[in-house]
């Protein structure tokens, strides 16, 4: 929407907004509407010269300005906001459905009541053709949410896939997120002394401690708008030649580059959290993937496979 259309819709909203809040402070209204006080006063001045045909004193929108407070005394017929457009109804209704479907979410009852009311107010534009189902274990997420709400520190047993280790650590929970197909606990990790996103399906056990969660003031929520995994240049860039059967990795892992090669192969470059993780990835993908670089990875993959094979030439247990 253009800036000018923004102003027109803002003006059409402004009269009913003020009408329902007689005597509101101009500064408060400006803050609520997301405009500067000066802009709001300018809007009020413009409305003052608008009104019903005739455009005489009794026809124009009128308001009482008492110091910093404003009250609409005549609305010229625009006493209600414009109904929701199709896109507006879609954005709110689908988001409420997503909230209602989020496993472990709090206040589900309020979400469902709000959804019913918004759908009813949206009238013909309600019922966008969108169905949602989000993954996750509602009891588990509910329990973790409880810890966040009660501000309880947690002891968690966490599996770190990047290093293939399970560790115990104490964390100060901050929030629970569902991003794409996964749920995360965001918390201050006292071990790492940093904010970490813990995949809920990798928290093997957790217990509330009798301690208050106290993330330090420098603990900031992670920006997850572009996803949870943020590759950094210090992470090793690995390049793999991938045949048809493993091309799915380009949808699963964030890739830096994917190039078609002659035949069925793709040349895929991605950042690995470390080479140990990359080795497990490549071994797990098996013959559909060949490492192109870096040379250390080619070597470690080959060496690991040969060492593993040696294990099968030994007599195996009894």
């Amino acid at each position, binding site marked *: *929407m253009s800036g000018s259309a923004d102003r*027109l819709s803002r003006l059409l*909203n402004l009269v*009913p*907004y003020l009408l329902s809040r007689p005597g509101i402070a101009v500064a408060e209204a400006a803050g609520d509407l997301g405009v500067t006080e000066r802009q709001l006063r300018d809007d009020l001045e413009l*409305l003052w010269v*608008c009104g*019903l*045909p005739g455009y005489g004193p009794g026809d124009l929108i009128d308001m009482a300005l008492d110091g910093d407070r404003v009250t609409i005394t005549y609305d010229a*017929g625009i006493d*209600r*906001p*414009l109904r929701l*457009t*199709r*896109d507006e109804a*879609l*954005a*709110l209704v689908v*988001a*409420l459905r*997503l*909230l209602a479907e*989020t496993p472990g*979410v*709090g*206040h589900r009852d*309020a*979400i469902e009541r*709000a959804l019913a*009311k918004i759908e009813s*107010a949206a009238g013909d534009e309600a019922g966008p*053709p*969108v*169905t949602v*189902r989000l993954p996750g274990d509602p009891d588990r997420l509910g329990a973790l949410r*409880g810890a966040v709400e009660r501000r309880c520190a947690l002891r968690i047993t966490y*599996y770190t896939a990047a290093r*293939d280790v*399970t560790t115990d650590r104490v964390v100060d929970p901050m*929030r629970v*997120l*569902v*991003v*794409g197909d996964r*749920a995360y606990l965001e918390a201050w990790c006292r071990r790492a002394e940093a904010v970490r996103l813990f995949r809920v399906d990798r928290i093997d056990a957790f217990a509330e401690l009798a301690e208050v969660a106290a993330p330090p003031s420098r603990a900031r929520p992670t920006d997850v708008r572009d996803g949870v995994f943020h590759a950094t240049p210090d992470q090793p860039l690995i390049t793999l030649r991938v045949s048809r059967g493993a*091309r*799915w990795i*380009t949808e699963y892992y964030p890739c830096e580059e994917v190039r078609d090669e002659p035949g069925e192969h793709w040349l895929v470059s991605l950042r690995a959290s470390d080479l140990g993780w990359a*080795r497990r990835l*490549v*071994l*797990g993908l098996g013959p559909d993937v060949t490492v192109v670089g870096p040379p250390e990875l080619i070597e470690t*993959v*080959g060496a690991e*496979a040969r060492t*593993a094979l*040696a294990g099968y030439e030994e007599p*195996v*247990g009894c």
Partner: protein
Amino acid sequence: MSRSRTERLVNLVICLLSTRRFLTAAQIAATVPGYEHDPDDPRDHEAFQRKFERDKAELRDLGVPLETGTASVFDTEPGYRIAPGEYALPDIHLEPDEAAAVGIAARTWQHAGLAAAASSALAKLRAAGIDVDRQATLGVEPVVRVDPAFEPLTGAVRDRQAVTFDYRTPSDDQPTTRRLQPWGVVCWRGRWYVVGHDLGRDAPRCFRLSRVVGDVRRVGAPAAYEPPDVDLISYVARWSGPRERTCRATVLVAEGRGAGIRRYAEQVVPGEDGDRVVLKYADAEGLAAWLVGYGADVVVLDPPEVRDFVVKRLHEIAAVHPVAQQEVRA
């Protein structure tokens, strides 16, 4: 938009809301400030007509329901009015916890278009007298990203109009062009799909939105079909259901290693040469591929089927990742 144009448009809305009769362009010009012109001067009149057309388009873009009709059977010129009942958001009252939920919902979108639509919807709710708490949280927040195809596809479903698009899965070498009567859009396990009747295959199909290449184009007439009343999730979920794990394998895991394997252990028996770990599985080849990822930390003891798959894969991997030249023993 200039201040004078904004003023003119506000006056136009108020004028058309207040009239019950349809007003012709000439009547509007004679009434609403800003449309003054000489109807007898062809150039001036034409300028007015262009201005009025632009203004009508602007109002329609905002969602103002402009009605067109004639005031009487003798009128030849079309007239305009806005029915207040069509214009206004119906009465809506939200309890504080409901308003908080709406505020949180509006923050869910990470997609610019939907985020803008959500915030203009919130502005209208505020104008209806609802106070929305911007700070409220629900403890668990979904972060939702949609693919570019989301908006054109939901629009096409509502207009019941077929679409065509190029589609490429990772196993395809080239995109294929599909024609679809879309029935609905589904979010399943965090991914977006469209389900509909594939006109090329003459069968129901679902497509992942992230695999749509380029634009979604509409084809044919609107209201061309009626989506069946079916559970769309079931079309998508059918391809993703997990298999029941009924078989058991025993693997030897080096002490203190293979944490990822131990997490799925049904039983762990420590021994001198490592821990014997029992795993349940559904597909021998799938289990083998997963175990190979753990390299020398794991040796499959049983069943032979899994063991053979693992050995075969390890040979294949070793063959294409040769020992570096300088390390070849003399």
